[in-house]
Structures are given as structure tokens and as C-alpha cells.
């Protein structure tokens, strides 16, 4: 599956412009991490990709065809976990997944439901009413419904919110396995998740794409711009973007990103988080 986003802009009826002239190619198999601060336009981009919104300018091509012509086909091949979703409280997990499977037109729904319930570790709650589930369990139901029917295109918006660290690792691995033969778009604030599993990263801010490439490329772009120093004076932080501040018995150890590192800072190997913050902070400075 291939999606081409061509010069897409989106302005809401309120006048707020969420995306500006976006161009992006997404091709399977790939697990793409979508990064960006709040309000950057990530959710708008995902809504455009699931045809919940129509772009005010530009076009989205699905395997070469305009999305509005193949909307039905796209929806049939889509697994989507939105950031903010609800479930039918009166149904059991199995009934809800059965309902979603029918909406998706999944063949052999019973087997598919069994598989996704197992994949998200909800076997014990399969017959429980959704109203009795915890926040994390609901999130897992949401992931399960997205995985139903082995869709070739998956979009996860903050999928690991509400999950404990162990579960997060489980799902990161699941996403990674899933992406072996399909296109997965993962939007998250948790850089660690992206770093662990994504082979591609798209950074978006103020409605525009700021970076596309591999995590390594993003990290490389921050080389020489990450440093650490012992804080002696608050004035030392001026012009720097502090990414970590650790209180130790020897004093406060700060980690910072900046275009130009001060002489008192010792150069450090950048992490993905450093690189991401460096990218965003540069834009803020500009």
C-alpha cells in the first residue's frame, strides 16, 4: 500500500489552519513514527488519512487513486486507533469486537476476534462488560479493534497511553511485528516507543513537516548540538534548551541542546529525544 500526500492544507471552519502544504509519501512495509508537539497537526493529518476530514487544498492518493474515489476501499483496509475514543459500555469485549468486525466486514470474525484478544492479552476479560474494564484494558480493546481483520494500513494515535511499562513493551513489539508486511503510522509523545520500533520518523510542527527520515538520520542531525554541564549559575541556561536536569550529590547536572554549545558544556552523544527537541527548539528560535 502506498499513500501520497500532495500539497495538502487543512483549514478548519473556525479559520484555524492545521496543515500547510504538506507533502509526504508513505509506503508499506514500514512503521512510521509521527512526532510533534501538541497542536502540531498530527491528529488532523490522521483524520485526513482515515477520511474523517477532507483537505481544503491538495490531494491524498491511495495506491495512485484519489482518496475520495476509494474511500470505501481505504476504510475496508484500515485499522485505526484514535487518541480519544469510546466503546459501547453495555457490550462485552467479544460482543464489541464482533460488532467492529462486522463493520469492517471481517470474514471468519470469531477466529479474528480470538486472535486479537490474545494479541492484546485480554483473554480473561473477553466476556466482561466494557463498563467494568480499567483505562488500560479499554485501551487494549481499542488496539484490538484496530488489529481486527489484519488490515494492511494501521494508524495508532497515542496507543500506549494508560498502559504500564510492561504492557508498553509488549505493544511496541506487537506493532513491530505487525509492521513487517504492512504500513503502520504511529503517533506518540513517547519518543522511546518510536526509537524502539520505527524505521521512519516524520516530525511535524505548526502544520508543516520538519523532518522525514530514519531515526538515525534525525539523531545524526543533532550531533554536536547536545552537551552536558554542571550548573553553577542559572544564567548558564540562557540560549540553551535544557532536556534534562539531574540533582546529584555533586550538584545539578544539566543536559541541553543548542545550535551553538557554550564552552562550559561537554559534548554528548545525542539521543532521539535530544534530536527531536533540538529540531523543535531550532524552529522556536527561528
Amino acid at each position: 500500500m502506498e499513500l501520497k500526500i500532495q500539497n495538502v492544507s487543512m483549514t478548519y471552519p473556525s479559520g484555524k489552519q492545521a496543515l500547510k502544504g504538506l507533502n509526504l509519501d508513505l509506503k508499506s512495509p514500514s512503521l512510521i513514527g509521527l512526532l510533534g508537539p501538541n497542536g502540531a497537526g498530527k491528529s488532523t493529518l490522521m483524520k485526513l488519512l482515515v477520511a474523517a476530514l477532507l483537505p481544503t487544498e491538495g490531494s491524498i492518493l491511495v495506491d495512485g487513486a484519489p482518496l475520495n474515489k476509494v474511500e470505501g476501499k481505504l476504510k475496508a483496509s484500515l485499522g485505526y486507533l484514535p487518541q480519544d475514543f469510546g466503546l459501547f459500555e453495555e457490550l462485552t469485549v467479544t460482543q464489541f469486537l464482533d460488532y467492529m468486525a462486522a463493520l469492517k466486514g471481517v470474514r471468519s470474525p470469531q477466529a479474528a476476534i480470538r486472535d486479537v484478544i490474545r494479541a492484546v492479552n485480554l483473554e480473561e476479560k473477553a466476556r466482561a462488560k466494557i463498563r467494568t474494564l480499567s483505562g488500560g484494558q479499554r485501551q487494549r480493546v481499542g488496539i484490538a479493534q484496530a488489529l481486527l481483520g489484519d488490515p494492511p494500513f494501521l494508524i495508532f494515535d497515542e496507543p500506549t497511553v494508560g498502559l504500564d511499562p510492561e504492557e508498553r513493551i509488549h505493544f511496541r513489539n506487537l506493532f513491530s511485528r505487525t509492521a513487517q508486511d504492512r504500513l503502520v503510522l504511529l503517533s506518540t509523545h513517547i519518543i522511546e516507543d518510536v526509537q524502539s520500533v520505527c524505521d521512519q520518523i516524520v516530525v511535524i510542527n505548526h502544520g508543516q513537516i520538519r523532518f522525514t527520515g530514519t531515526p538515525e538520520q534525525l539523531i545524526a542531525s543533532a550531533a554536536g548540538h547536545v552537551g552536558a554541564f554542571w550548573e553553577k549559575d542559572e544564567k548558564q541556561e540562557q540560549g540553551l534548551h535544557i532536556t534534562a536536569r539531574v540533582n546529584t550529590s555533586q550538584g545539578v547536572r544539566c543536559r541541553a541542546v543548542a545550535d551553538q554549545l557554550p564552552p562550559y558544556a561537554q559534548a554528548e552523544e545525542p539521543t532521539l529525544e535530544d534530536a527531536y527537541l533540538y529540531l523543535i527548539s531550532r524552529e522556536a528560535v527561528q
Partner: protein
Amino acid sequence: MKTMRLFPLELRRLLQSRLTWLIMALTVLSPVLGLVLYKPATSTTMLSVYLANPAMAGGVAGAILFGLLAIFELDRARRSRVDILTDAMVSPLTTALTRLLALLTAAVLTAGLTMLVWLPISAGLIGSVFTGANYVLAYLLLMGLALPLGILAAAAAYQFTRRADLSIVLFIAFCALSLTVWADDWQLCWLNPCVWALSDDFSNFRVFRSVAWMRLTWLAALAGVWTVSYLCIRQYGKGMFGSLARSVRRIYRPAVALALLAFSGTAYAAQPFIDQSNPDLTVMSFYEIPYAEGVTFLGRSAQVFPDTAAGTVTGRASYRFQNTSGQEQSISFGINPGYAISNVQTNGADVPFTVSDYQEYNEALLEVTIPAEEEVELTMEYSGFPQESMPTMQGGKELSSEYLCLENSTLSPRVMNVMPGEAGYPAEIEITLPDSMIAIPFSSSEAEVISENADGTRTWRYEANSAGGILYAGDYICEQIEAGGMTIEFYYGRKHQAVMEEAGAVDAVKAVVDYCTEHYGTLSFGTGETLKLIQSRVAGGGYAVGGASLLDEADFTIANLGDTDKGVVPGEIFIHELVHQWWGLGNMFDTSDSTSPWSSEGLTVYTTYRIVKELYGADYAQQYYVDQWQQVVDDYYLNFYVRHPEYLEMLPEAERLNIAGGLSGVRRYNEMPLKILKAEQLVGGEEAMDQILRGLFNRELDPMYPYLTYQEFLDTCHLTEEDLNLG
């Protein structure tokens, strides 16, 4: 396709909701409201009380409940934010359609369940006049079809506004309109059809057809509105108009909406049931048409062919006139507004004619110019669905294989401006009816079968002498009773046979006619030789002409015959109702003051007591009549609201009217007979009272106010109101 695939799933989901089952259960129970609280059908027939009212109450409650359920269900996906998931998989238009179908199916299941639950209850309450066809049609039309209307209206409100609170307000306002402002407009009261009565003993097809027409008109209208709202379902983050603009790109969608709305509008405008008669009943312009100069009436013949399956009439009428004016003359006829006139000829030649758009008293004006020839034969053909003029009392023009009533211009065009000839308005009417039906002219005329036709019909012929005339026909039983020196032909519906036999109807007729004729005199509308007593389909009252009198079936229902206010056993109540032929019909009473204790009931109950005394003895009459009146009147004087009427005034209107009605009934049925009994004692006994009543019955009537008043009664007895005080 996707809708049909998703439908069972959505239905299953809907039926997994406790709220759905609660709504279904309440709807199934809701007909009970028609037995105790909400009684729009005012007639007292068994089917009105125990079928129409429960079914209509079920329809009103069910439509409101399902409308609220629809709003809740449509809002639930949005409220719980499941729509974010579902819209990513399926178009919101598809899910909306699927949800609507699931709700409609739940409504159908509920209506079916209601019919099953209420079947034994209704059959038990209604008794021997219960029929499956009436039951199914009543629950289907009066209740069942209200539910989808409620769902469509509520769903449309939600799809337009996308707000549950606003939708509920709009939906309730729409329901309230039907229950208040539109309640008397039979086409607009979508929730509560204008059904005032269902007949026990005859068919109800006309009422059912009318309700079906109204329901289908609204079904199309609301389906059209729903389709427009469906096009407004928000998509792609757009507002209502943006979504509408996007949805109408598939041209069949707005086309379906427009077709439904156009169909509804056409059905509304082209309804065949009710005419456009001038609602101002003081206007009688047709009676002011001057008589055609020099034209006299020689005769009329008509061949009438009712189609009892379609409820239509086809006929051919021929009129003979003598025109001595030497000029063309314009002849005016009253025709039923539902009829189309064709092939109008005079002396074999086609002549032009006009039919007025203006209608009055259920007639349109047909005008034909006859030639300046001395002998003119005017022929015409007419056909159509007879229209009525009282939308809130439909059913009078019932036309089925069980019953029909063709009155005046509905039987054949009625000449309005031609002077009678020497023989008056002689007429010869032939009517072809299914062989199960008996033709009964509402006059002294007798109809006879002149041919038995190969198609299973029989042609009847009778002669009459009037410009109009009324014909009843139906599946009647005729009892010939010799009483009061004449032959009583007592016609009642075959379905009512068990009830009539239980009530000892034949004996009662004989006893009453013998007694009343001997004590008060013959009925003025008897010919002296025969009197037809015809049980009519429920009509809101009886009436009489020379040789025939009508008994409204509502007076002879199982419930009425068990009303102990009127007598002890059904036979005595039957006597009571027949006595009304003398007191009520033979002598009329002014009923304009509903609080007055003086009505036809006082003298009727008194006369019933006298007949029962003669039949069963003085002890029986004392115990079951006089003592009971006294007991009820004693209780009446002790009643809190009688002693403190100021508290009655403080009650809510409905409760006040209910209590006042009950108290008024006590005064009419118990206090007044006691007063008449006291008057009997004061004037010197039964014989003296009989003489007084005989004098009153046969008194010369004032044509401007032909009613028997309490003052006349007191004056004739030489008593004052105070003389009859019971305290």
C-alpha cells in the same frame, strides 16, 4: 449491501440494551392507558372502549417512547465517542441508516408483541363482538404505524440538530402539536388519529382506510424529512450545510427525499375521504336556489352499484321533468363531493354540465340546462368514493359487504330546485348488493329482490317518494314482531345476535311498544301498520322518519346493557333504550344544558320502571328501581362536593368535569325518576300520571322549540319545583 450486512448486528446491539427492553415493555403495557386515562374515542361501543382507545393510547405512548429511544440511541455513539471508531470504518450515513432500520425493527417486534399480549385481554373484554380483523387492523393502524412515525421524527430532529436535548424538545413539541392544535384535524394529528368510534356489529373499513391514509401520508412525509436530515449528517468535519452539499452529489439521495415529500403532499391534497363543505353551518345557500320556472318533477329512477370491496359507488340516474316554461331551464342537483358525473344527456342528447367547487352540507352543486321541451328525460352517470363532511366523526359513509348507508345525494344526485309534481317526488331505486346484504329503505317502503345475479349479487328494488332518501343495507337479521297494533320489523346486525338474544330483545320490543302505545300513544313516525326499527352502525344518536326509526348500536352494546343505572338485567336496559323511541326521539329534550337534571333519561327510567313493574311485579320494581334510586340519591346528598360545591370549583378542570359528570348522571338517572314518582303520587297515582304523560307526548309542538321542558311537565302536573323536592 453494507447496510443489510450491518443491520442484524445493529439490531442485536440494540436488543442488548436494557433501555430498549424497558421501552419495549412500557410500550407493550401502554394500551392500559386507553382503559383508564386516555380515551379519545368517545363512543361507548365495545370496540371503541376496549380496542380503539387502548390501541390509540399504545400508539401515542409507543411513538413517544420509541422517539426518545431513537434520540438516545443516535446520540449514544456520539456521546460515548464510539462514532470516532465506527466512522473510520463505515460512512456515518450507512450507520445512520442501519440504526434506523434496527429501531424500526424493534418497533415492529414491539407492536407484534403488544398484539399478542393484548389479544386475550381484548377478546375477553369485548366479548362476542370481537373479531380478529378489527383487532389486527386497530393495533396495526392505530398503534403500530405510530411507532415508525415517532422514530422517523425523532431521528430526523437529531440528525438535523446533532443535539440530544434540542432534539427531545423538538420531538416533544411535534408530539404536542398533534395532541393539541392538530387534534381535530384528521390529516395532521399524526400521533392520535381522529377516531371517535369503532363499530361492534358492522365493519370499520372506512375508518381504518382513513387512518391508513393519514398514517401513510405522514410516513412518506417523515421519511422524506428523515432523508433530508440523513443528507445533513455531518461528514468530513463539515457543518450541516457543508455535509448536505456533499451528500446531494449522489443525485438519487435528494431525489428519494423529494419523491417522498411530493408523494406525501399529493396524498395530503388528494385525500378522498372528507369534502370541502363550508364549515359555517349557518350558511344554506343551496336551499336558496330559486325553483326552475315552470318545471315540475315527474319521476326518478336510479340503478346503484356499490363496490363493497373498494368502498365506491357507481350509478346511473334518470329524471323526468315537465317543462312548461317554453325555455331552457337550469336544474340544480346536490351530489356527493366524492362523485364524478359523466354522460349527462337530455332526451338522448349530450348536454353540458357544471359541478361547483363550492360545497355545503356534504354536497357539491351540479347544474344542468334542460331544453325547452315539455317532456324532458335527463340521465346521468355518477361514480366515486363517497366523501364525508365531519372529519372528527368519520365512518358514517361506511360501505362494505357488512354494512352500507347511502343518504340522499350519496344514493343518487338530489334534485334541489324543481317543484314536486302531482305525485310528489316519485322514485324507483334499484341497488345491487352482495347476497349477504338486506336492503332496508329508511322509510315505509319495502325493498324486494328482483334478480339474483350470476356473480353472487342480488338486485333489490323499492319505490320511494322524496327527492333524496336513505338506504341502509347490511348483514341484518330481521325479526317480525306484532306489538302495539302494528308490525315491528326489527333489524339488527348478525354479529349482534348473541347479545340481542341475551337481552331478550324481541320480548323487550313487544313489551315496550305495547306498553308505550297503550299508555302514551303511537309514535308519530309509525305509519300505523309497520314500523322499522333499524340498528344502525354507530352514528352518535338515533333519528326517525315516517315508518322507520334508527337505533344506534352504541345503545345496545354489551357494556351498556349491563349498566345498572338503567335497569337490573340486560333485558331491562334494552327496554330502557327502546323507551327512548318515545322519550328522546318521539319527544325531544333540549340537551344544551349538561348540568340540568331534566333530560329524556328521567321519563325513560320512570317508564322502564313502570314496564318492569307490569312485567315482574311491584315488589321487584320497588326493590330494584325505587329503593335503588333512593339509595343513590341519599348518597348524592351526602356527597362532599354536593355539600361543598366551592371545593369542586377548585379542582383541575378534567377532574372537575369528571366528578360533575358523575353527579349529573345521578341526578338524571335517579333523582329525576324519583321526582316523577313523587309527582305521580301528588297528581293522584299512576293512571293520572299516564294521562298527563299521554297529553305531553301528543301535545302540539312549537316548531321553533320542539322540546319537552321541565316547566311544561310541572305545569301540566299543576306542581312547582318545590313540590318535588326530595329532601
